[in-house]
């Protein structure tokens, strides 16, 4: 079942002489439960792609459907609410709230949507991410890798249809990077969670289901079949 459908996506910056094609006719689909990585050099257009999918940037042409719904046919308020309920974000710079502890940071998106947190689900996520013993710690008391794991928990708690991870390992050393990617893989399998991750490090893509390469705005599928949920 297609969670994300990108069709003929183009993004152009500037006009006339200074025109730059950041994305050229990009098309792909992601099925439910797939963990896909987009690799590419910096400036290749991979961040533009992620921003367009997250509706943080408007594409020049083409359509993006998240679970069959077109983000760009909504008004700004509807899009904000849709994004809050259906898309989770993980950033390079963690973006945790420094005054809140680990557990509070994880349930934060639920509070934004005026929902009551289900503590069984919170405990399960803490256990999955190896943070059970640090649930009362503040972000400042955690290492970078641990902070990024909290950010993963925060993206998972709303069980969004799609998680977009923008260079989640950009600020981490190689061991922590591998941990973060492995935990994203586990989460993807456990919750049938669809994840699209951007990275410039090709070594981190060994456990993902699919790999795309973006180069000069052109996307190529490097392979990896549909996630074998059964094997």
């Amino acid at each position, binding site marked *: 079942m297609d969670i994300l459908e990108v069709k003929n996506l183009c993004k152009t910056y500037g006009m006339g002489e200074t025109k730059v094609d950041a994305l050229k006719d990009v098309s792909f689909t992601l099925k439910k439960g797939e963990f896909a990585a987009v690799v590419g050099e910096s400036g290749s257009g991979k961040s533009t792609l992620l921003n367009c999918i997250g509706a943080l940037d408007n594409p020049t042409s083409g359509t993006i459907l998240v679970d069959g719904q077109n983000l760009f046919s909504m008004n700004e*308020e509807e899009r904000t*609410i849709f994004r809050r309920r259906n898309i989770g974000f993980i950033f390079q710079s963690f973006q945790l709230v420094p005054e809140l502890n680990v557990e509070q940071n994880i349930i934060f998106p639920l509070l934004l949507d005026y929902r009551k947190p289900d503590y069984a689900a919170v405990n399960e996520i803490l256990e999955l991410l190896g943070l059970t013993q640090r649930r009362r710690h503040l972000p400042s008391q955690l290492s970078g890798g641990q902070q990024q794991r909290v950010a993963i928990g925060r993206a998972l708690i709303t069980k969004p249809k799609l998680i977009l991870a923008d260079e989640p390992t950009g600020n981490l050393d190689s*061991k*922590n990077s591998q941990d973060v990617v492995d935990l994203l893989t586990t989460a993807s399998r*456990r919750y049938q969670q669809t994840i699209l991750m951007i990275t410039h490090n090709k070594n981190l893509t060994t456990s993902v289901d699919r790999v795309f390469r973006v180069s000069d705005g052109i996307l190529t599928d490097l*392979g990896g079949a549909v996630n*074998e949920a*059964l*094997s």
Partner: protein
Amino acid sequence: MSLFQDKQVRWYCFFLIFFSILLLGMNVMCSINQVNYAKEIYISNNGAIASYLLEKGISREVVADALANSKVSETGKELLAMVGIDHRAAYHKFPYLDKLRKSSLYVTIPISLLLVLVLLSVTSLFFWRRKQLFLQADKVIGDYINGDFSHHLPQNSEGAIYQVFSSVERLATMLKSKMETEHKIKEFLKNTISDISHQLKTPLAAIAMYQEIIDAEPGNTETVKEFSAKIGASLNRMEQLIQLMLKITRLDAGSIVFEKRYYSVPELISNSINELTARARKEHKQIIVDGDPRQQIFCDMEWTSEAIGNIVKNALDHTGSGGVIRITWEQTPAMVRISVTDNGDGIAPEDIYHIFKRFYRSKNIKNMKTTGIGLGLPLAKSIVEGQGGVISVQSERHHGTTFTLSFLTE
């Protein structure tokens, strides 16, 4: 307050507040009006009485005292009752009161009716619009029930009902993907059964043939020995296959409870490769175990050994004589990673995403003497993921392959 999240509810509440203020204002206005009127009645009634008394020659002092008097005596009451002024008297006997009654009825009744009308119409408009919303949702949910997922519920607004819609949307997404996996499961079962029967038929056919040969030459000891050994090998292969199948099926069914405890990694590794060292020596291959001997790991000993054993077995299958298999481990901030690296042929890029699929056999393998069934790696994957771990593979053609098993440390 979260009650006001919903736009329609918020507008309706605003209306109710506005309406209450209006109602209050109107009551205050009416009572002020009535008090004014009562004052007027009081003044004119007292004026009439005073005028009459003065006309009849009563002194001004007495009349003034009479008007200021607030005591009511029994004789006074009796006198009033005699002239017909008491509680039982009809309104029309008091001309002033009658006027007041008429004017207040004529004003309050239409205003109250108007207010009631406004309240009823706005309330029914509110309920009608809610009903439209529910009907719309009902239609979409009905479509979902019939397997049509082309329409979506309105879920992109604030408020409890939209949260419910958004949960229903999630439910629909789950249902849709369930329906699709169900189809895939059927396909998968069909393929699995044909794979299993194929895998069982081949050794079975061989056994039947060997048995015929032995049957034809029962006196030839050499032949009997040779073919009974072959029968043994085939039986062994069948048993292996059945064992693996049973294990995978038990894992699939979720009837396995992993008994996780802390073990030292060297202990786990030696338990895993116990039965493989002899084979490695026989095939002139080396298994090197290298890592911090104090490293602890939190896992199920028996099953994890099975997983690592299968990966090492796979490495032995795909390295030539003189091959080296290194088993190393390291602690990262959140995990323990065990790596099994071989210096064999490596995995072709077109195979790498399929090696964990059941019964997957690469078309690129030239030497078909490899005895893999295509269940070892899938079983390892099921075991590792069942314990919340991750298995990943990295390979370079003609240089070797590394399998990495990662387990959470906490």
